[in-house]
């Protein structure tokens, strides 16, 4: 049994055993309701059970627990999302270089495999924890709850969660963050916001990254912004180049305004 959230195999399986046994018993007796008419006497009655429960209710409950923890400890948490290769890790490394002496920073890295990204963050001088999602395509709020305890995130700090590179699934899973930040690089195409609208709808901030490459690619920044606003009228947008530093301070200023000092 897990001390943080009460999760654990023993809990669920013991609760379910009687149900599964009954089910297996019925199946053994060939009591299927499919593919044949019931000619025999039937002592079971079907009934309707109202559920009205969100498919993500469990994740959302963990997300609310995380959010309450972050608020209580003044941890400003961001959920960084993008397609693979948009520059999330480089963005974090450069952000850490600029801000690590101003307030504590910690990073949770999500990837299907490898410890590479967490290694890069640690090399930049802040604690990082890598979650390997295996076959899963997104991080969930339960895993984040464990990660914040394992990582020991400090009060009055910035916590960046770098999600799995994927513009689809992570949009549905609230992790308890203050904001989702979507990173879109100019090498990807300016119509990404309407090709993958769910993510741009869920994000509060869009970073248009790698702007130093604009002369070499066919990317219309204004069209991209227009598409993003069509999907999400309230989205805030910052254009920057992480590697060349162009307009990088607009992003770091945005963070400085939001991380609560001690």
């Amino acid at each position, binding site marked *: 049994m897990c001390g943080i959230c009460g999760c654990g195999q023993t809990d669920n399986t013991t609760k379910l055993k009687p*149900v599964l046994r009954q089910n297996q018993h019925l199946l053994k007796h060939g009591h299927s309701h499919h593919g044949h008419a019931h000619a025999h006497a039937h002592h079971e009655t079907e009934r309707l*059970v109202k*559920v*009205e429960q969100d498919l993500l209710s469990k994740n959302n409950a963990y997300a609310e627990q995380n959010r309450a923890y972050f608020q209580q400890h003044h941890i400003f948490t961001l959920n960084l999302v993008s397609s693979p290769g948009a520059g999330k890790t480089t963005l974090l490394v450069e952000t850490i270089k600029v801000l690590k002496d101003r307030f504590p920073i910690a990073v949770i890295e999500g990837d299907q495999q490898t410890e590479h990204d967490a290694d890069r963050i640690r090399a930049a001088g802040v604690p990082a924890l890598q979650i390997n999602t295996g076959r899963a395509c997104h991080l969930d709020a339960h895993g984040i709850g464990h990660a914040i305890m394992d990582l020991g995130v400090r009060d009055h700090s910035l916590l960046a969660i770098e999600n799995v590179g994927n513009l689809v699934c992570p949009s549905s899973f609230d992790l308890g963050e203050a904001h989702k930040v979507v990173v879109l690089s100019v090498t990807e195409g300016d119509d990404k916001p309407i090709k993958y609208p769910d993510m741009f709808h869920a994000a509060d901030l869009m970073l248009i990254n790698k702007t130093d490459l604009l002369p070499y690619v066919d990317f219309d920044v204004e069209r991209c912004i227009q598409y993003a606003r069509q*999907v999400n009228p309230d989205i805030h947008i910052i254009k920057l180049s992480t590697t060349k530093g162009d307009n990088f301070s607009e992003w770091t200023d945005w963070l400085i305004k939001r991380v609560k000092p001690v």
Partner: protein
Amino acid sequence: MHELSLLENVREILENHAVQQSFSRVSQVTLEIGKLSCVEPNALRFGFDVVMKGSLAENAELTISEINGLGVCRQCQRQVEMESLYDPCIYCGSPFVKVIQGAEMRIKDLIVI
């Protein structure tokens, strides 16, 4: 993969309700899925039998009722039907329409034994 995680949640919710409401088998599951949610009903249908195998909802029938997308135009304040998250207002053409319905993904009800 995303739909499979959601179906695993469905199975878990059914199992919890089975304990709370004393039933041993589910013969029908009705989901309500908004047209503007990021879930593909066909992918849910595809994965349903696989995920429910060995559970109390093995062989259950899956019914999906779709909820239409609705938004309110930021400019003219009128209510508009939406097929996608980026549909402009059909009255004034403004691209700024705020979604008010259609993002739902929930289990509505079950038929149980």
